[in-house]
């Protein structure tokens, strides 16, 4: 029931997204005007697809990271994965600019994986009685890597790239410049196959061992999936914070942590919320745009607060 409503909302948002923008485009024009079709095909369509993939994949990644770290307040974009990806891309741009794009992505993903693994090691040393330390340490850790990225970029005169990677927005998405995101979509979809495994490691190491799970292997698979999605997102549209934090919390509050049932919902909600933010960002100061991250911060926080304070339903 909720699922159906969510999917319908997403479809409506997608249609809206196709007809919102600087160039006037009415649904009727599609039938008569070839230029209109072209606009949809090369710009509005790709942008909509990119937003949907990004929102969905980041929300799924956030869920996986929260299960791995066993903490509700972390997400890849603020806890070192996103910054690691940016660092990787920067290093690749500096040292091996002639590599094919997929190789570059692989290297960036590797760096993101490394920084996330280090984060996990740090978290495992924190006292379990102090859950709020985890996000704080994550913020500091991500901040340090981010500062390193900035420093290197400044030295190498690459600050304009950094701006693109660090501040996510979709106005630059055009046909031919977003297709890498399809890999992120594929990886996020594949991670659904391990939904039960992720749910079990979310119950802790003891529960995992008892149920015969190879704990370390699942953690590695999860980190890999997070790193790929994050690196591809950072490269194509830039860092978008909060999606991986807010959406999984909303969904788990409403529907719990049985990921086999909830991950699809998480993906659709993430896509819908980010797309709504993107559309609002396009309209609010029309014809200028507000970056999707800022709008999402406000929108996501509002939804989350409403959930926190809305009367609790007992399912």
């Amino acid at each position, binding site marked *: 029931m909720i699922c159906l409503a969510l999917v319908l909302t997403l479809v409506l948002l997608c249609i809206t997204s196709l007809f919102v923008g600087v160039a006037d485009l009415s649904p009727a024009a599609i039938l008569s005007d070839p230029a209109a079709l072209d606009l949809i095909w090369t710009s509005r369509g790709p942008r909509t697809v990119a937003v949907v993939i990004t929102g969905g994949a980041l929300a799924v990644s956030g869920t996986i990271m929260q299960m791995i770290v066993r903490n509700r307040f972390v997400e890849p974009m603020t806890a070192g994965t996103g910054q690691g990806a940016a660092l990787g891309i920067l290093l690749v741009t500096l040292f091996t600019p002639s590599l094919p794009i997929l190789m570059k992505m692989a290297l960036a993903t590797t760096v993101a994986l490394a920084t996330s693994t280090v984060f996990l090691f740090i978290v495992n040393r924190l006292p379990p009685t102090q859950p709020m330390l985890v996000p704080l340490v994550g913020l500091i850790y991500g901040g340090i890597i981010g500062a390193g990225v900035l420093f290197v970029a400044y030295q190498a005169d690459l600050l304009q790239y950094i701006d693109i990677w660090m501040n996510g927005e979709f106005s630059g998405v055009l046909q031919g410049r977003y297709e890498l995101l399809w890999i992120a979509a594929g990886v996020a979809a594949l991670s659904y196959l391990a939904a*039960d495994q992720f749910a079990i490691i979310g*119950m802790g190491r003891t529960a995992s061992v*008892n*149920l015969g799970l190879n704990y370390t292997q699942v953690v590695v698979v999860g980190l890999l999936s997070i790193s790929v999605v994050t690196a591809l997102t950072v490269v194509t549209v830039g860092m978008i914070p909060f999606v991986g934090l807010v959406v999984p919390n909303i969904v788990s509050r409403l529907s719990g942590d049985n990921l086999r049932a909830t991950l699809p919902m998480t993906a659709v909600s993430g896509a819908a919320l980010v797309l709504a933010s993107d559309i609002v960002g396009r309209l609010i100061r029309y014809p200028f745009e507000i970056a999707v991250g800022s709008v999402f911060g406000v929108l996501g926080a509002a939804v989350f607060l409403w959930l926190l304070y809305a009367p609790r339903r007992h399912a």
Partner: protein
Amino acid sequence: MIEISGVSYRIGGARILDGINLTLPKGGISALIGPNGAGKSTLLSLIARLMPHQTGTITVDNLVVGACPNNTFARKLAILPQASDAAPLLSVRELVGFGRYPYHKGRPSAEDHAKVERALATFGLTDLAARRLDTLSGGQRQRAQVAMTYAQDTDYILLDEPLNNLDIAASRSLMRVLRDLAASQGRTIVIVLHDINYAAAYADLIVAMKGGRIVATGTPDDIVTEAVVREVFETDPKIHRIDGKVIIEV
């Protein structure tokens, strides 16, 4: 049969377990008793490979703990740990369903669903099945955890203080279910109990631990005596025998 030989365990400089040699027979209920800090939970965790053991060997039937593939072991032995982590945001049915994971690996069959329903019914959880764990009382949650362990459907079941938070009806009913599993299906139950009356009433074998060692092993009649209780627990309760049953005064 669980065979433990020469198992010691240290944390830092502290000796938690000290040269444990113990054979627990296949089939029946074995109760572990002993004062707080005796090492009961540590021993159970080692048997269930929740932590790697340092010296000695442990075998469960023909499976060597630590060497046997994790998933094979999960279909041989299930453990209910003492301190369960914060309740996951799952419904009772979902939690119990995860007990079937070692068999279905994420794709539950009709048989898995049927076993989950049976586990729910066995522990009187059918009415609560759709409720989320964080909305339950402590005892109801404990019952759900026990039901999950039960659903794992293993020959060996290790329970660390499962009667925690349970009322007398739930406690008796759990012990009866366990006795029935042992008697009619030949399952082997190892259970940590603090209430010696329960151990005396339901166990086939009682193992008393103290200070990381095993100080006495035997039938309830042998173990639940004033002398042994005094030695193990350093307290002096009276023990009565009524109708051939041992009852310890509280």
